[in-house]
């Protein structure tokens, strides 16, 4: 192969990368050695061949997608891409560093300023309790008004080149406002209130149960224990949430900057928003809480969400990570669709294949959290292929058997202040399509299936599933028929790992981003 040390100079000679001395040396070699001449000729031909390969170009500019993703990462940190656990110390340090970066602080400060400005100008100041309530539904802060493909996330709409005059600092503020789902007059102002409500205890060393407002009471403690017992990962995430909150407190350099000024994602991660809650408010909230508990703990119906993920995304447990981050998961397990639960589907030919392995997550969350989670997942191209929703129990006035809820945590969950439901299940519109048709179908089978600890697969209807980029608005519209956006419900997420062959035939492939 002419791998002779002297010949190594031939490559550099060809590239004009020799010193004067080496140049002379090579020229002498070429003059005396025909093999060297042949090697040089071959190398020249090879080089010419390689350089004649056509240039590959990207279709379209990456800049918008880059800026959008960068914003997310700067404010919240990227979704973990592998399964290696992040050492706690590292996580804490990286978070602290992230939030002490000058650019991030600028963003956060301006976000705070906008939030304060908005709240000051809010004509209809809400009672303090509502501030806390909002702080406890933090995921709304990061839920975009409607799902968008990766390159069109709302928060960076102002950022492409043609809008270059819009400053970087304004982006998060835009994001906060723009990310408010279903914006209504005054709603953005309400969302900003936790920031306004921030008390001064910036230097408070301990984030007293920041992400567990219920810890003070026994039920809350049970809940926390149950959650920790349910999943070590959840406990880990919970701990991280505290660290996050600490990071955000300690990294705020100025007393003028309220410690609640966190990225939307930060709020979502430490759902207390409790940094902003005074003792009086807490006590007030506890009264409401008790009243709520008498009223209802977690509302009906239970909704089943079938998520068809790419095999890779399923293996990476992307959905699990998102759900865990939002502290939605009460229980999770692997399961296999059994003939009994598959055959129970009247539309058996469209039901998931018997024997299909799925991952099941039992969650308690608001529809807003669900939307934010799915939207976040759908923002990663090619991961969430399709998604569908169907009610499982409690629809049409059906009250689920308590035992069927064994997968959910038993401790009562803190509810937001009860407010009259704007709709009831009896008022479901007839135009809800196939999924809605299930509303009227008694789901007793499913109830028993859950009671028997069988996964609730029979109502999964892949035919109803749409590509993720199209179906999230529809899915949220369906969910809205059965729920109030800000109330807490039980959701059963079923994760199907789908490749092209396994994805239901009726499920279109999502279009490339």
């Amino acid at each position, binding site marked *: 192969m002419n791998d002779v040390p002297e010949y190594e100079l031939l490559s550099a000679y060809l590239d004009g990368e020799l010193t004067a001395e080496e140049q002379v040396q090579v020229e002498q070699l070429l003059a005396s050695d025909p093999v060297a001449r042949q090697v040089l000729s071959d190398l020249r031909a090879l080089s010419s061949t390689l350089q004649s*390969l056509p240039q590959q170009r*990207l279709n379209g500019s990456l800049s918008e997608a880059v800026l959008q993703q960068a914003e997310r*990462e700067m404010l919240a940190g990227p979704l973990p891409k592998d399964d290696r656990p992040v050492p706690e110390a590292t996580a804490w340090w990286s978070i602290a560093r992230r939030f002490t970066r000058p650019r991030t602080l600028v963003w956060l400060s301006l976000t705070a300023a906008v939030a304060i400005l908005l709240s000051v100008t809010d004509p209809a100041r809400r009672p303090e309790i509502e501030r806390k309530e909002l702080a406890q539904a933090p995921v709304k802060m990061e839920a975009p008004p409607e799902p968008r493909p990766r390159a069109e996330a709302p928060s960076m709409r102002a950022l492409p080149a043609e809008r270059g005059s819009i400053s970087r600092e304004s982006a998060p503020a835009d994001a906060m406002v723009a990310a408010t789902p279903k914006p209504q007059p005054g709603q953005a102002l309400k969302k900003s209130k936790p920031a306004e409500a921030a008390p001064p205890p910036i230097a408070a060393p301990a984030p007293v149960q920041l992400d567990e407002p219920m810890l003070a009471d026994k039920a809350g403690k049970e809940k926390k224990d149950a959650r920790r017992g349910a999943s070590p990962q959840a406990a880990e995430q919970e701990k991280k949430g505290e660290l996050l909150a600490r990071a955000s407190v300690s990294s705020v350099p100025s007393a003028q900057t309220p410690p609640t000024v966190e990225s939307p994602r930060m709020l979502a991660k430490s759902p207390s928003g409790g940094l902003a809650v005074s003792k009086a408010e807490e006590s007030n909230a506890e009264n409401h809480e008790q009243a709520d508990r008498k009223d209802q703990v977690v509302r009906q119906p239970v909704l089943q969400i079938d998520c068809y993920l790419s095999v890779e995304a399923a293996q990476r447990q992307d959905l699990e990570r998102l759900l865990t981050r939002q502290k939605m998961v009460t229980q999770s397990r692997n399961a296999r669709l059994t003939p009994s639960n598959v055959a129970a589907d009247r539309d058996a030919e469209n039901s998931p294949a018997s024997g299909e392995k799925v991952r099941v997550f039992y969650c308690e969350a608001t529809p807003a959290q669900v939307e934010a989670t799915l939207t976040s997942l759908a923002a990663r191209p090619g991961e969430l292929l399709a998604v569908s929703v169907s009610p499982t129990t409690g629809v049409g006035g059906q009250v689920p058997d308590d035992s069927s809820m064994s997968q959910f945590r038993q401790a009562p969950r803190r509810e937001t202040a009860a407010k009259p439901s704007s709709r009831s299940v009896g008022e479901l519109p007839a135009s809800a399509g196939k999924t809605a048709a299930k509303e009227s179908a008694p789901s007793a089978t499913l109830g028993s299936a859950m009671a028997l600890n069988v996964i609730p697969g029979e109502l999964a209807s892949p035919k109803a599933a749409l590509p993720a980029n199209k179906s999230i608005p529809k899915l949220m519209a369906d969910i809205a028929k059965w729920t109030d956006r800000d109330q807490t419900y039980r959701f059963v997420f079923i994760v199907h790992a789908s490749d092209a062959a396994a994805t239901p035939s009726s499920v279109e492939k999502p279009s490339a981003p």
Partner: protein
Amino acid sequence: VNDDFRLIDETLQGRPAAFGLLVEKYQDRLYNTLVHVTGHAEDARDVAQDAFVQAFVRLETFHRGSAFFTWLYRIAFNVAATRKRRKRSSVSMEQLREATGQEPVDHADQPGDQIELEERRRQVRQAITQLDEEYRVVLVLREIDGCCYERIAEILDLPVGTVRSRLHRARLLLREQLKQVLAVEDRP
């Protein structure tokens, strides 16, 4: 380079659109290199995007001891290496075709020379992807991207001497694999 530094300053002063200009300036060049390094068009796109994102996020840490482009490439190769470790999937012929953006060619409509040229290009790309990574990256940076040895050394954090020997070795290996292709191209 000064233009790049100006755009970086503007970005750090709070104008992300300036970074968008940097993205547009370098995206095709980076992508073209990454297609040959990763052997897959989709991977190349993802790596390029992730590299730009990381560059944006870490922009304060860029001390301007080198060109922005060098720093960006360094990030991109790290991203590519990380992804590869995760993925470890072999590159199939189909993927190669996808990597190079070549649609299946309808030979009936093409003159014979064109068919041969496409086939030779395909063989060359395949041969590149079969090189060990340490050789492939150096070769691509030199032959596809046109970097000088010093720049390659900077990007890969290697001594220039190592770059020189790896490049020579890469060329010899590739020459062995492409003997037939080169023989055809040598024909008058």
